[in-house]
């Protein structure tokens, strides 16, 4: 029997697994760029076959990164409710004006058509690919690497006065604290459960009951988050962090063959996904 309190169990985005794989060794700049290119490809691709190819490739990446596929797939679990809600909305609300769109069912402004069914399936596939890709990125890249990579990639934007460093720092902190807050939440849930708290016992329509049940968690969690924020500020200041001043880094990245190959492969995949006219 697994414990009901292991919240971090299924959160694969934001964890980092130390491995010695090709994916882990890629230059973070190139890894991020490839990631962004692949995301664009997945977002544009709207055929069944293209998305299935994308799904297969993103699962294959787990293998390349020596991360168990089952662990990567378990990262889908927390996203299932969102996928269902978005899927239902698209199923009933999506409308397309095209001659070959068949309408199966209609009630007022709600309608189910062949186009809406297609978009539901495609968006579920897309969602899975995006979760897999983001999991692989964060599982194979430490947060400092992500920040440095991002900062370096965005550095041209400094010319137009874009606060590149602050931006990448914000992203890093946000990603870094997902597992931390999940753990804090776990601690709170345990402590409140041992005082007799119950979570999620109200039926789904008892919104007020369900919300008040969460108060014993939300309020302490806010407190902890603020306290952690303050600690973070102190820790950064203690190391002489000055916002806005220019910083040097001691890790210099130098791309090698593998990095260029990864980038080229990503571009190739996007071409395969987007420009080949698949029959379905």
């Amino acid at each position, binding site marked *: 029997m697994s414990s009901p*309190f292991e919240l971090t*169990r299924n959160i694969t985005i934001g964890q980092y*697994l130390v491995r010695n794989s090709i994916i882990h060794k890629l230059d973070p700049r190139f890894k991020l760029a490839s990631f962004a290119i692949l995301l664009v490809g997945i977002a544009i691709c709207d055929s069944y076959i293209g998305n299935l190819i994308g799904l297969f490739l993103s699962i294959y990446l787990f293998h390349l990164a020596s991360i168990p596929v089952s662990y990567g797939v378990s990262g889908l679990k927390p996203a299932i409710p969102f996928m269902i809600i978005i899927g239902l909305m698209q199923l009933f609300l999506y409308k397309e004006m095209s001659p070959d769109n068949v309408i199966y069912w209609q009630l007022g402004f709600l309608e189910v058509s062949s186009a809406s069914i297609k978009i539901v399936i495609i968006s579920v596939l897309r969602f899975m690919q995006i979760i897999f890709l983001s999991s692989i990125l964060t599982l194979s890249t430490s947060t400092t690497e992500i920040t440095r990579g991002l900062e370096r990639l965005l550095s041209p934007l400094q010319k137009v006065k874009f606060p590149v460093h602050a931006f990448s720092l914000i992203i890093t902190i946000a990603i870094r604290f997902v597992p931390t807050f999940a753990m804090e939440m776990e*601690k709170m849930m345990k402590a409140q459960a*041992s*005082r007799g708290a119950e979570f999620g016992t109200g039926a789904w329509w008892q919104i007020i009951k369900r919300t008040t049940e969460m108060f014993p968690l939300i309020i302490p969690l806010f407190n902890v988050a603020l306290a952690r924020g303050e600690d973070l500020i102190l820790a950064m200041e203690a190391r002489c962090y000055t916002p806005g001043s220019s910083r040097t880094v001691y890790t210099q990245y130098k791309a090698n063959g593998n990095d260029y190959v990864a980038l080229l492969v990503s571009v190739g995949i996007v071409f395969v996904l987007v420009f080949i006219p698949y029959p379905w």
Partner: protein
Amino acid sequence: MNQPILSVKDLTYVYMKSTPLEHQALLGVNMEITEGEIVAIIGHTGCGKSTLIQHFNGIHFPQTGHVMINGMDLTKPKLDVKSLRRQVGLVFQNPEDQLFEKLVGDDIAYGPFKMKLPLEEVRERVKWAMEMVGLPFDEMKDRATFALSGGQKRKVALAGVLALRPKILVLDEPTAGLDPKSRRELLEKIKKLNQEEGITVIFVSHNMEEVAYLADRIYVMAGGKEVCHGTPEEIFTNPEIILQHRIGTPETVRTLHRLHEEGYAVNTGRFRVEDASTEIRKLLPE
């Protein structure tokens, strides 16, 4: 010999089982605790103490092995977890982080309210719990929780668990991070709870002075197992165990041992502060 109120048999536990982050925390723990005892669990960080005591409260369930608490078998799937949590009160590390109500009284009343007790009884229990931990009911019940000092917050958190009227009280490092005065006060309260209310107390601690002061028996844990147990006299006077598991000893033990080594006739087993001072005073010329 009484029937043990809590017994643990060959308990193992793996965190994040079947993920790449899996981590074995317990490797077969055995333990028996009799009603009315105060038992200390000591051992180095990461030896599985916290994981073990979370089993006592139905936060974790045995993956293999058995835990029996007051006649309830935790391996049974149809276990009444609510009733278990009423019998075993668990106070986590830094429990003051978990207060969420605006007023002290409301926070302590949270547990009894969840038990659906009548208002009168909730009030009664809150009053009793507050007085048990040394917070005057009339004066403190309407104070804001967030304006309290660290020591007071911890007392509030302890009272919140006591208000459930548990038979067994489990504490995870109850005095960590408290100033010496609050520390002493809290220890006295715990002792009083045991002596006056007959509550069985199990606590985890790194502070050997505290262990010497409170515990009737000690369990030493290392590497996910319990490696030995005995009375404080047995543990603290056994240099082998102390060295092997790098357990600290109370200052009184160190003093007595030192005197013993120097050739003075002292009884090294008498480490409670009063006893030790009598031993030392015996050596002094009139």
